[in-house]
């Protein structure tokens, strides 16, 4: 790793570690925790959308399964929160498997519609199973025991989970699996031809994103401390999706910048909060039309445009004397 990148990561790590000390107020700390909780989900989803190119627009369904599983296990059944998080992750991994087995065989638009339908189905189930989930009224979610019961403590817990997810996705992305996923995204036929197990690779990535969504959902629910079906509206799904697309597909840093900016921006600029989804849609459209590579690569693309690479000219100089000699000798 080059020194510049290393220095940036160290500065970022120190900033993240000391954030509770310099954060202006409790609300900013809450926002930082929220970003970290989102990132647990988006980090996993990034492997599905950013690397293998499967456009899942219904991950909010998995998030809400994780959140409700945590709330029911830790709140109603009285399981220890750490175990409940593991349970939520396992359940969501299973849900991801069940969803992925049929739907990952489908082509792009079919898959997007199937995932969207699942997010609607989960909403229906939550409303229908009122005895378990509290229906439209919602459910209170317990917090974590000490030392994670203060805002700062909880921030460290969520940030640690986010770091673990980042580390895992980074490991996948730079090794064989990640290369295989990128090959699937760029050309399924080529990937098949060079021996990438297409369906299995997609399924594993989707399963991982399911587990991440479950853990993220559990942490998210605990942070919100009260969840209703309205917490998991479809806009949230759009938000995850837009974060990854505008950050840039095939990178980890890009989506991370995306989630930080998109979470913080509506809080800082209040008119944007009112526009909400319109703003996400506009951003998505602009990115797709202007920089399909994502904002994370904006500078590279701009540099390429402004300073086009000079094509090396390789002039062909025929060896004239030798040619003349060959003609003279009648060959």
């Amino acid at each position: 790793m080059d020194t510049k990148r290393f220095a940036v990561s160290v500065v970022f790590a120190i900033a993240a570690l000391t954030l509770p000390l310099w954060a202006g107020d409790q609300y900013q700390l809450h926002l930082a925790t929220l970003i970290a909780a989102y990132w647990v989900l988006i980090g996993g989803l990034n492997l599905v959308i950013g690397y293998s190119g499967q456009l899942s627009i219904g991950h909010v369904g998995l998030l809400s399964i994780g959140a409700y599983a945590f709330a029911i296990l830790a709140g109603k059944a009285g399981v220890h929160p750490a175990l409940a998080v593991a349970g939520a992750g396992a359940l969501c991994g299973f849900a991801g498997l069940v969803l992925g087995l049929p739907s990952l065989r489908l082509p792009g638009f079919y898959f997007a519609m199937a995932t969207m339908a699942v997010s609607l189905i989960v909403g229906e189930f939550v409303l229908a199973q009122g005895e378990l989930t509290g229906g439209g009224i919602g459910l209170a979610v317990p917090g974590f025991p000490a030392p994670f019961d203060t805002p700062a403590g909880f921030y460290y817990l969520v940030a640690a989970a986010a770091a673990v997810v980042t580390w895992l996705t980074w490991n996948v992305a730079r090794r064989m699996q990640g290369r295989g996923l990128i090959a699937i995204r760029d050309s399924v036929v080529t990937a098949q031809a060079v021996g990438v197990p297409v369906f299995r690779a997609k399924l594993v990535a989707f399963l991982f994103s399911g587990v991440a969504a479950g853990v993220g959902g559990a942490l998210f629910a605990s942070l919100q401390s009260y969840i209703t079906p309205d917490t998991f509206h479809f806009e949230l799904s759009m938000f995850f999706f837009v974060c990854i697309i505008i950050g840039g597909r095939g990178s980890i840093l890009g989506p991370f910048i995306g989630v930080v900016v998109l979470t913080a921006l509506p809080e800082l600029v209040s008119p944007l909060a009112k526009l909400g989804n319109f703003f996400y849609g506009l951003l998505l459209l602009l990115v797709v039309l202007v920089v399909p590579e994502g904002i994370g690569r904006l500078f590279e693309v701009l540099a390429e445009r402004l300073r086009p690479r000079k094509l090396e000219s390789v002039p062909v100089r025929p060896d004239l004397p030798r040619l003349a000699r060959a003609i003279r000798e009648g060959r």
Partner: protein
Amino acid sequence: MLFVIVSGLATGALFAATALVYNVMFSTSKVLSVTTGHIPMLGGVFGAYAISGLGLPWWLGLFTGVAVGALFGWLTDVVAIRRVLARSDEHLWLLSTLAVATMIQQAVGLWWGTEPRPFPRLIPQDFTAGLADQKFWLPVALAVVMAVGLELFYSRTMYGKLFVAMSEDAFAARARGVSTDRIRVASYVLAGALGGLTGFAAGQLTFAYFALGMTLTLNGFIALAVGGLGSNTGALIGGFALGLLNTFASYFFGGEYQQTIAVGLLMVVLLVRPEGLLGSRNVRPV
């Protein structure tokens, strides 16, 4: 029981009409636009706005709904399709139409309000009409007329034949001197007008509601995938089957599991016959 069947047919007709709109756009551009369901939503909302809000007669309301739909269809092509199709990345159109769909839904939500508002009566009729109520037979009649009209359009008119030529092989059509770009724009405007008409005719069934779009996009697509992509008859069959299944499921199991059953139908059909009931089997592109 009869009531369940009739209301199922009416909802099914709405889904079928949406599937037809999908087909019109798909035939020329091979794009399944996420905005499809939002066109009927616009037709319904603007129809209700023109009649109830501005106090115009029903035929001007109809004109408004259709015109706004057509305008939106044109806009979709200009903003989300034209530049994206020039690139070859097959996922980009999904993203760009999703972006346009999100923007239009939010914009209508901000302007019109997020509550469903009633759609005015089009034909003077008593509210006790029951099964003969216009909110049931208007969509059914429209879906059938639309399917028949599209078939006639495709088989009898020059423009229709150009659509068919483009849907079979766009490159060959272009080589034969068809202005494929212009035909594609025409198909989007036509789809927009038909979608606006659908939303207007089904307005009393769905109410003028901003969030109708995503539901219709999904259910219309399920109807289309069940019936077979590209087939108008298939779209009708798929739509009516889905609508009947939906209402029967709510009648027997309660209304909570509508979406689950619709997607279940889709999954079963896709597993048994991936190309849909009347679709043609796709050749695997290499």
